[in-house]
């Protein structure tokens, strides 16, 4: 019997190591500047608004917003409020600015998806309504996504800080959603999916409410309409995290970035505490950023990857990518915060030179 010596000198190669290597290789192969300009050329710079005109400028120049109705028809809109808070309205979305005062900001998401980076202001009420769901904010970054149709759905994902969510379907009940968590309300799901919320709703006393620790939505439990739990494996037909991860990988290799992103999204929704969730969030962020031109979605996913304690090398890459993603959004304040977070975490990191050059002067 012959022995191949090379068999006995072999590195330990994990999936995570392969993903990190590919992430580095693909990043070094990219030419970000050309993609930005291509996006600008394709995206155009103007969209109409029914109520007021909103100039959709390149991401580096968010537009101050006024009361009225905002609509991002074919490309995203980035806007700032007077207190420095900003939001990005995804293409095909619309939002009403009902109030914008030093003590109160009230917005209504009519359709689509919006991501916020809210500046902390003591004593100010900042609320966003989507359907019969209200999100109240102190100072945080979060996104709300709505879906219409036969199964209307509202999803609140928190990137930093925490928000309180109230639903008209559960009067008097407040769900506190912390960084890295998502809260989802939807109808039309199978009973198996609506059967096992992971945690009880938090009582409507935010000052004393304990913060939940699970990376899952706090779902108001009770009678119909069904409120989705994102618990892993609660239904017999729910794909496993492994299946979804592999499906995402296959889709990526087949060149279908959209399908890959969807599989990662499903993994994060159905299995938020699985060991693959952090890596899935990182890969989702990378896809949204590099392939799908969705910088707001990339921010959401990358922040989630960081919150989920993705492995050390991925965490460094995720923090570096967040700087680029915020810069692509034109969100200078968030970009600077992300840059400083990276530089303080990795003063000798591999992305120091590129990160330090971002977001203007320090």
């Amino acid at each position, binding site marked *: 019997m012959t*022995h*191949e*010596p*090379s*068999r*006995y*000198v*072999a*590195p*330990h*190669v994990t999936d995570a*190591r*392969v993903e990190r*290597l*590919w992430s*580095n*290789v*693909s990043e*070094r*192969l990219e030419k970000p500047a050309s993609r930005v300009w291509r996006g600008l050329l394709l995206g155009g710079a103007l969209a109409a608004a029914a109520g007021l005109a909103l100039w959709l400028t390149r991401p580096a120049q968010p537009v101050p917003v006024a009361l009225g109705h905002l609509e991002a028809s074919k490309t995203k809109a980035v806007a700032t409020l007077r207190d420095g808070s900003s939001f990005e309205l995804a293409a095909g979305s619309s939002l009403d600015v009902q109030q914008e005062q030093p003590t109160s900001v009230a917005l209504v998401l009519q359709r689509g998806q919006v991501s916020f980076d809210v500046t902390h202001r003591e004593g100010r009420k900042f609320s966003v309504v989507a359907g019969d769901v209200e999100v109240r904010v102190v100072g945080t970054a979060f996104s709300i996504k709505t879906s219409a149709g036969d199964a209307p759905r509202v999803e609140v994902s928190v990137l930093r800080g925490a928000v309180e969510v109230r639903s008209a379907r559960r009067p008097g009940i407040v769900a506190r959603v912390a960084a890295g968590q998502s809260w989802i309300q939807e109808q039309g799901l199978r009973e198996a999916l609506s059967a096992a919320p992971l945690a009880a709703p938090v009582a409507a006393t935010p000052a004393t409410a304990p913060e939940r620790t699970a990376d899952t939505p706090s779902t108001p439990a009770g009678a119909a309409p069904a409120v989705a739990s994102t618990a892993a494996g609660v239904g017999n037909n729910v794909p496993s995290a492994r299946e979804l991860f592999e499906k995402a990988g296959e889709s*990526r*290799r*087949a*060149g279908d970035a959209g399908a890959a992103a969807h599989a990662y999204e499903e993994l994060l929704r159905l299995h938020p505490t699985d060991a693959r969730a952090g890596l899935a969030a990182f890969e989702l962020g990378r896809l949204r950023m590099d*392939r799908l031109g969705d910088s707001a979605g990339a921010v959401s996913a990358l922040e989630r990857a960081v919150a989920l304690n993705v492995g050390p090398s991925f965490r460094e890459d995720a923090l570096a990518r967040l700087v680029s993603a915020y810069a692509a959004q034109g969100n200078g304040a968030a970009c600077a915060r992300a840059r400083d977070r990276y530089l303080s975490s990795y003063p000798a990191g591999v992305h120091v030179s590129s990160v330090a050059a971002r977001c203007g002067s320090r």
Partner: protein
Amino acid sequence: MNALAMKPALHAPSPEAPAAASAPTDAALVLAARAGEEWAREALFRRYVRLALGLAYRILPFDQDSDDLVQDSFLYAFERLEHLSNPQAFQAWLSSIVVRTAGKRLRRRRLQIRLGLRSATPIDADEVVSRAAPPDVAAELRAVYGLLEKLPAEERVALVLRRVERLEIPEIAEQMGLSISTVKRRLNAAEGRLERARKP
């Protein structure tokens, strides 16, 4: 680099090699990658990254070094796909890139050590060689890895390709981009050092 008739150092079966008849061939992936298809580059990467890591690790048995080497090798390959005359020979071509890039890194590292810009990191042969290795194989591998850090770059690479990868001299010459006679001289020198190191 011509890889037309070369047996690659990456000779183990690839865990991600196309198993099904419907999987794209290397040639198809190379052509798609040349056309700018990122998915094709990724498919090539995933197909061969583990084999490239194995080869890199056997020449530079430190995880960070082998990671850097593999990244640089894939980058070099993807940026020069136009120079690959036979698209189906991607595996062999990549293998030779890993070998030659390793040689450059080793030469640079030795220079840095001589200039006092970095310190030599000894190889822990017991750590590198699997405990599952049969005693005779383990003994030979430990002897090789105990010596590697003392060898000049070309002798080191040639010795690994010969003693660990089990390549023939013409194959080593092809991988390293050297003449057969040069490879023989390098191997003779390395084997002599190995012999002397084994003597009590």
